[in-house]
Every structure is written in structure tokens, then in C-alpha cells.
């Protein structure tokens, strides 16, 4: 019962902040409203007993990606372009498309018979994730670090000022 109450509060926080992100006319306000959204998602991870993923989510999403988005807004035209119209002429079509997709997904999710497992949950710890990353999933780990390296070099070169 308590878990359901927490779930409802967290979904309210997440969905209301997400609505502010997608519909606000002020781009800085919509970027700052990403922070409660990400913190709500962190709460979901903690409810799902994935604490390491929750910690990484706060550290990377709320701490780094939000800062990156705010930096780019302030360095492009966010400081001066706040009175500009933010939505384009595709609004009715996009409302239709997203509502249709939402209806489709929700009806599929409610009707599908998911094979939920009934055994007890193991204790998910950081050392378990570390072992999985270095034994079974070592290829995933190596390829991800390669992608990070390439993305880092690419971002530096693309954003560099021409001399």
C-alpha cells in the first residue's frame, strides 16, 4: 500500500515535469524542469531496487547532461531569444501521432500476458554489476568505452572554434 502511494507521487512528479519540459514557452524553464523529471525516474529505479543505476542516473543525467543542455542554451541564444515562439506548425499532427502511439502501447502493455517470475529477488549490488560487466558482458563494456572515446573526440572537434 505504501509502495503504491510512493509510485503515484513519483509518477505525478515525473509526468508533470515532463509536460512542463515539452510545452513551456521559455526554453530555460523547460531545461530546468528536466531535473525533477530525472529525479523522479531515479525514484522509480530505487523502487525497482536498482540502486546503482539510480546513483548513476542522478550523477550523469541530473548532474551532467542537464548542465550541458543549460550551457548550450546560454551559449547559443537562450539568454536573448526568450520571447521567440517555440512551437512550430506541426502541433496538431504531433498531438495526434503521440496520442495514437500512447494508446497503442498502453493497450498492448495491459493486454500482454507477461511471464512474471515469482522467485525471491537477489540483492542487487554494485559488485554484482561489476562482475557481470567484466565476465559475461565484457564485450559490451569494451565497445561502450570505445564509443565514449569516439564521441568525446568528435564533440571536441565539432565544437571547436575555427582558427
Amino acid at each position, binding site marked *: 500500500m505504501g509502495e503504491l502511494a510512493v509510485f503515484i507521487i513519483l509518477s505525478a512528479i515525473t509526468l508533470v515535469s515532463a509536460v512542463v519540459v515539452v510545452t513551456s514557452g521559455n526554453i*530555460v524553464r523547460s531545461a530546468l524542469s528536466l531535473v525533477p523529471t530525472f529525479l523522479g525516474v531515479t525514484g522509480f529505479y530505487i523502487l525497482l531496487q536498482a540502486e546503482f543505476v539510480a546513483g548513476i542516473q542522478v550523477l550523469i543525467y541530473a*548532474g*551532467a547532461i542537464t*548542465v550541458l543542455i543549460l*550551457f548550450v542554451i546560454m551559449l547559443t541564444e537562450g539568454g536573448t531569444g526568450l520571447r521567440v515562439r517555440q512551437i512550430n506548425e506541426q502541433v496538431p499532427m504531433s498531438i495526434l501521432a503521440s496520442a495514437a502511439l500512447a494508446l497503442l502501447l498502453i493497450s498492448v502493455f495491459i493486454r500482454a500476458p507477461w511471464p512474471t517470475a515469482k522467485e525471491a529477488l537477489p540483492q542487487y549490488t554494485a559488485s554484482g554489476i561489476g562482475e557481470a560487466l567484466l565476465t559475461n558482458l565484457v564485450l559490451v563494456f569494451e565497445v561502450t568505452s570505445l564509443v565514449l572515446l569516439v564521441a568525446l573526440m568528435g564533440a571536441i572537434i565539432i565544437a571547436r572554434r575555427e582558427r
Partner: protein
Amino acid sequence: MNWGLEIAKAVGLAVVMFTFLAVVGAMFGVLLERKIGGWIQSRLGPKHVGPQGLLQTIADTVKLLQKEHITPRAADVAIFNTAPLIVAVAGLMDWIVIPFGPTLIVRDLNIGVLFFAAMASLTVVGILAGGFASNNKYSLLGGLRSASQMISYELPMAAAFIAVAMQAGTLSTVGIVNAQAQRGWFVLWQFPAFVIFLIAATAEVNRVPFDLPEAESELVAGYFSEYTGMRFALFQLGEYAEMFGMAAMATTLFLGGWRGPLLPPIIWFLLKMYLIVFFLMWMRWTYPRLRLDHLLNLSWKLLLPAGLIWILITGFVITFF
């Protein structure tokens, strides 16, 4: 799990921690800083208010509370008002995982050190928001500089955390203190990580020699130029709470936490924490301020490679010895 009891316990502990930090940390810390600064500079600190100036911070707080709330006319009011809250709350949330004694911890999370790093990185969003919402060129510049400094120094701090967690075998703060019982304090085994952590911690809380974002001679007061009264006090509370939090984390990770021979554990913890706070304040009154590009070079070209090489060395030593 009894939800009502857990929520009551959480709220009660939050109130206790906030009171402890607001009274002891911020107030006493500000007084300590001015007295130590005076002693290092061969002058007396505050002396008039109360015996030996002990009530000075209370007088300052009363003064700040009765100042007028000024909001700049073209500022974005909602963001302007919530920015100091983000900084203060993130600075205070750090204290959930600090162990004052074997069982004196608000919640012994099994991702303790990761939680600490995550809360320290949430402060940056508040500073950027505050710098932007003031609608003032100097605040914006100060906010951008401070944010770039803080995100640059998160990486060496995380490298120091990783090296300590590798040697202790756990991310939980209580586990790390217990791991120091067998082999000795980590300040001996992980001295480079200690140095890296102290430098990165000084930069994370925007203290001299890394306080270019708040430099009075260059940027008025940086990102909190437009804040008056209670909101200014909230910013300062957040920064002092975070400084004390970094000192507490340094004693937990490197100086053995609460362990010590005769006195009760909490006395040892506070003694070691105030030793590191004294060291941080001593650094403030000794070194000049670093320029922004020197500051960023120090992080990216010196501390981060040093941290990564130290992780490599730690891994090597742990595997083979």
C-alpha cells in the same frame, strides 16, 4: 515495512541534521573562518559581540534575515527563487551517508560514496540557474565559470573515490571505515588519492584558491550578486554545508572515520573533521587565486591523468599483493 514509522524517522533525522548543520556547521564555521583568518594574518578576528566574539554569527544571521527581499525587475522570478534552494538542499543531502559513529548514520546506503558524488554534482544546476536568472552579465559569467570549474573537478574527485572503493571493496561509507581497521588508515596507502581529493574538494565548493567565480575584484560577487537577505544566506549555507561535508567525507575515506583509542567515536570524528576544515581554511588565507585557464588546466591536464594512473597502480597492487 512500516511506512509511517520510516517516514517519521526520515523527517525527524532530516530536522536534526539540518539543525546540527545550520547551527554548528554554518554558524560556527563562519566564526571559525574569521578567527583563523585573523590569527594567520596577525590580527584579531571579531571580538565585540559576546565573549571573544562567539555570538558574531548570530548577529550576522539576524542582520541577514531582516534585509529586504529584492528581486530584479527583468529576472525570471520562479527560477530566481528556486536556485538557492537547489544549492542548499543538495549541500545538505550529502550528509545522509556520513557516519559519525558505528551506528550514527542517517542511512547506510550500499552506494554511499556514489550518492555523495551525485549530490555534489546537483549543486551545479542550482548555480547555473541562479547565475542565469539574475539577468545580469556578471552573474551569468560567474555562473558559467563556476559551473565549468565544478564539472571539471568532479572527475578527479570521482577518480579518488574509485581508488578508495577499490581498496576497501565496497561503496558503503561504513564499510570503508571498517576496512581501515585492518590495514591502517587510507591516508598512508592512498596518499595521492588524498591529495587529489582535497584539491578537488576545494574546487568543488568554490573556495580560494579556486574562487574565481566569486571574486570581488573581478565579477562583483559572481553568481550571487543579485541575491539579498535570506536567499544569500541559503547560498552560503549550502556552500558551507558542502565544505563541511567534503571534510567529513575526507575523514571517512582517508583518516579512519570514527576510529580512535580512548574517546567516544563521535568525538574522534569531529576532531578529525575539524582538522581538515582547519587545513582548508589555512589554504584559503595562504594561496592567491588561480586564473580560470590555469584552474581548468590543473584539473584536466594534471589531476585527471594522475587520478587515472593512481587507479591503475591501485588495481595492480591489489591484484598482486
